[in-house]
């Protein structure tokens, strides 16, 4: 359940990211590239624009990003 106690978090969830963002489908298509760029220490946000904003706005895609980054990065 959503944390209701932080008004900024609640407002962030209601209003979403201000920047242009990709859709869930594009996020899934690009997620492996984005994660490997990050793991290689490169500027993933510059190379895959719109994905970070989507991750900020979509909790489900963000969870999958966190999992992929940790698993592919050998943290499993």
């Amino acid at each position, binding site marked *: 359940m959503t944390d209701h106690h932080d*008004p*900024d978090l609640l407002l962030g969830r*209601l209003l979403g990211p201000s920047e242009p963002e990709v859709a869930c489908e594009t996020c899934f298509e690009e997620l492996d590239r984005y994660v490997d760029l990050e793991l290689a220490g490169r500027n993933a946000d510059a190379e895959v624009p*719109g994905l970070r904003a989507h991750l900020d706005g979509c*909790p489900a895609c963000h969870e999958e990003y966190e999992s992929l980054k940790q*698993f592919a990065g050998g943290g499993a």
Partner: protein
Amino acid sequence: MRDVSTASLQVEPMLEPHPDQHGPLQPPPPQPELDPVSRAWVASLRPAAPGHDEAVARLRALLLRAARFEAGRRRDALRFLRPSELDDIAEEAASDALLAVLAHLDDFRGLSRFTTWAYKFALLEAAVKLRRRAWQDREMPVEAAAWDVLAARTDDPSVAVERSDLLRAVQAAIEEQLTPHQRRVLLALAVQGVPIDVLAERLSTTRGALYKTLHDARRKLRRELAAAGYDLDVGEEVS
């Protein structure tokens, strides 16, 4: 293929071009040559390739490890499941992911390692199944409860005045500017914490379509509030 979650992501592109930014609309980068390990994976997974069956078995083992990793991350939310039930879900996710990877082999562009590309299918399949399992016996929260949450935050004396004002304006805009469907989706996802895959299943739609609805609702709210002069510089990480 049963319940292939990747299909639930399908939706028309939702991006509206930003006048100052062309980023998300850039063409994809040129396709690089595959690294040797990825090339070996792709070659060995072709149907008639030598060692095909062994490669498929190795891939499934990797996908199962990824699915079990995802199950482990969500174990606390699924304490009511026996370990064997959790593992059954991981096994099912690995099998579905294997089918998805093999079906999409030609889509692998070599922009990441092959294993990273393949893992994302297993993690998605497992995450969707586990979110749905966690909510399987739960009713959808009623909309009135979301309004109670918003009212409680707005009236909370510990919340700064400008935040209370903004929350009040957001509530008014939700009531007055959004369609009933946009309102229902926004409140369920953003206030009540219903996972998007769960809501998609209950509403017989896709995750992609629901996120498009959420995105449109948010943009409508932002436009309305900005026009009314509100400062919308709020914490944007919503996960």
